[in-house]
């Protein structure tokens, strides 16, 4: 078992009549790049703020490493948690230059600031004020500043959403590299699925104030625990099936399951293959062409619709009949 960097147990938090978190559990492993992914308003920012110490939970406990930082009758103030923070708006101190921003923290080891400025590639810009920097540079200053006091964990609240799309993927990679280089555990909050899947070592999906599933991105995508998680993480279509004797039977084939009785199959478009066949059970409804791939919608004989993500080559037309093959599906109870 790797050492835990953050452990949250049973956290609840209300703001007046609104419940932001309820029964929130989270385990972040030392050294991981861990992401909390959830739709708008699910409470992810609140969770981050409670871990940072900006807000207090109504109940439950938070540990950073092995230290209890929030619990019944105990609250460690943010300045004594050694938890770094990178805000969406970067929150650079506007009246301080780059060097003063990065060296702002208490207890920085000598040489650390130079090393970090070097690491984030801002050497030579020490005397610039924040408003004289580009968005990407501001982002890196914020990161260097958070890393300077060598925190046990860095929290990042939607750090890429203020950058324009062209810049975003580059900055994303840079940030990940810097964090790996610094060897710091990172907990990152986003509502962008692609960002979450591509960056994280571990991913926690959050809905309505609680974590619904935590796993490696691949496992989450391929083995979601609920239809909701499946749809939230990517494109998913659902087809009725009947399970018996360890197998779920449907018009699209047989898939292993431990369920019995009526159930449904979750099928992702990239696991669907189409072959032109005038006797086939499916009929092409429409096609969206993207260049490197295409998304073809099909109506099945049973009335269900299914999407297939295919390479650009097969040239299907609306109304054409097709044979359908599915090589992977997840079985959920109905």
């Amino acid at each position, binding site marked *: 078992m790797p050492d835990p960097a953050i452990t949250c147990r049973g956290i609840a938090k209300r703001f007046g009549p609104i419940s932001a978190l309820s029964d929130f559990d989270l385990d972040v492993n030392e050294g991981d790049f861990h992401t909390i992914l959830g739709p708008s308003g699910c409470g992810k920012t*609140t969770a981050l703020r409670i871990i940072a110490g900006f807000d207090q939970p109504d109940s439950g406990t938070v540990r950073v490493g092995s230290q209890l930082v929030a619990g019944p009758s105990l609250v460690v103030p943010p*300045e004594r948690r050694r938890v770094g923070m990178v*805000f969406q708006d970067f929150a650079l*101190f*506007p009246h301080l230059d780059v060097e003063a921003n990065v060296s*702002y923290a208490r207890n920085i080891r000598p040489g650390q600031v130079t090393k970090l400025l070097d690491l984030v590639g801002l050497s030579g810009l020490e005397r610039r004020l924040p408003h004289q920097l580009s968005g990407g540079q501001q982002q890196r200053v914020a990161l260097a500043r958070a890393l300077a006091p060598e*925190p046990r964990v860095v929290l990042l609240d939607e750090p890429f959403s203020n950058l324009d799309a062209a810049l975003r993927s580059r900055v994303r990679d840079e940030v990940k590299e810097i964090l790996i280089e610094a060897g710091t555990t990172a907990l990152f909050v986003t509502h962008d699925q692609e960002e979450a899947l591509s960056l994280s070592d571990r991913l926690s999906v959050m809905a309505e104030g609680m974590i619904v599933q935590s796993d490696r991105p691949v496992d989450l995508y391929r083995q979601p625990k609920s239809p909701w998680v499946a749809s939230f993480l990517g494109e998913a279509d659902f087809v009725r099936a009947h399970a018996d004797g360890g197998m779920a039977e449907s018009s699209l084939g047989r898939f292993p399951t431990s369920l019995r009785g009526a159930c449904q199959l979750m099928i992702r478009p990239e696991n669907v293959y189409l072959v032109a066949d005038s006797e086939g059970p499916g009929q092409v409804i429409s096609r969206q062409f993207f260049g490197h791939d295409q998304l073809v919608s099909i109506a099945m004989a049973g009335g269900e619709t299914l999407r297939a993500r295919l390479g650009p080559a097969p040239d299907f037309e609306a109304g054409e009949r097709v044979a359908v093959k599915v090589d992977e599906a997840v079985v959920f109870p109905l």
Partner: protein
Amino acid sequence: MSTAVADRAVLSGPGRRPPLGLVAVATLTVVPLVFPFGFLLWQSMAGGWQAVLPPGRLAELALNTLLLTAIVVVGAVVIGFATAWLTTRTALPGGRVWSTVVALPLVIPSYVLALVLLAGTGRQGILSGVIVAMGGSHIPIPRGLPGAVLALVVSTFPYVHLSLVPALRRVDPALDELARALGAGRLKRLRTVLMAQVGPALRSSALLVGLYTLADFGAVSLLGYDTFTRAIFLQYAGRIDRRPATLLAAALVLMALAVIGLERSTRPPRGERRGRVVRPPTPHQLSSSQRLAAVTFLALLVTISVGVPVAVLGAWWVRGTAAGRETVAVWSEMGRSIWVSIGAALLVAAIAIPIAVLVIRYRSRLGTILEATAWTVSALPHLTVGLATLLVGVTFALPLYQTLPLLFVAYVTMFLPQALGPTEAALREVSPNLEEVSRSLGQSPFETFRRITMPLIGKGVLIGAGLVFLTTMKELPATLLLRPTEFETLAVRIWSTTSEGFYTRAAFASLVLIMISAVPMHFLVSRDLRNA
């Protein structure tokens, strides 16, 4: 991004508790400002008031005060609306400069205007001299109502001007065009379209002028118009029994509270005032004769309200010096005025900070109550602030009677909102994320305040302090009642020499006062108009 916004909206609502120390400090600074008024009202209740003060006398004072207030409000609103309209909605030569110049009378306190009237008219008056030289007869001294009206209209119309200029600039031309397209006539458009948009600012500034007039002490007392403030001071100064003065002051406080309440209730909700105009209104094209008339009006107004007063004061000074009279011995008064004002500015600015933090950072209900309280007591007549503070001092803290600390309590009472406004505005501009990041970097709340918050709100605090400095320099009635014996400021000196008829000395002191307050006033007024 929407997530963060939604979460923030939840977070900044009620539920985040401010630290106890902050609450305690803010509360402890505001309570002493309200207590004196409570005590004043309570004291006035004790014992039958009819025995102390005949109801007929009370009615007479109320009538005089209301008459003056009504006339001044009408005069100031008419002139202020005219200047605001001319400087914002027409293309005048000189453009926006007029807008600033018209506000200049703000540097002349009402008691100095009273001095100008007294020193300019009558047999020895400078203006009389000019008229006589041109073959006329001397101007009679406008004592009583006419003089008070003149002095107060001149000193209040700039307030109307300053509050209407932004309102007029925000008027959306699209609405007027729409009304015209629908066939509304000029008068109907003026009534429905313009008034709907400017009406709230107009009403609120009219009530502020009313409040100012109710509260004025300097002009009415020097010109001998019998209002509440004059009667209160005469009762206070002339008698050992303080009850008549207390009673009159209580009545005046209640009247002022009524006007304040009326002003609050007619004030437009905050969101409405923030309307954004897509394009500026097209200025009205004036014919050349209209333009000439407009410029003449503005020039004449500025001449009467600023030029003539300064000229009269200057002439008295020159004449007195020529006659070998001692005229310039006001340096020690000036020094006192300046350091007392700096002291008040620093004190008030410092006290405003915790309250601003409570209101802006924690959206604390207590903070809002403290803030509203500070605004209310500051709007009460300064003479009653002085009297109430004095009453409390004499009753509960006799050693403080006639000492500077008691005077500073009164200054805080009167001027706290002036520092509160800019401080809150500055704090609103500082993202709470900055403070949180600082905490997460290991800095204590105090270090965070010292290194992040304070440097970022410094300018706002300074502007607030500047405003307090300015108004403390001019403050008369409370200083008059609370100052230590022999402690004469410029304002007190001007008032006492004027009431004794030593116009030459008063004139020079007034010129110095105008000069000192002109500098920060210019800065602040041009900022106000720019921000509009």
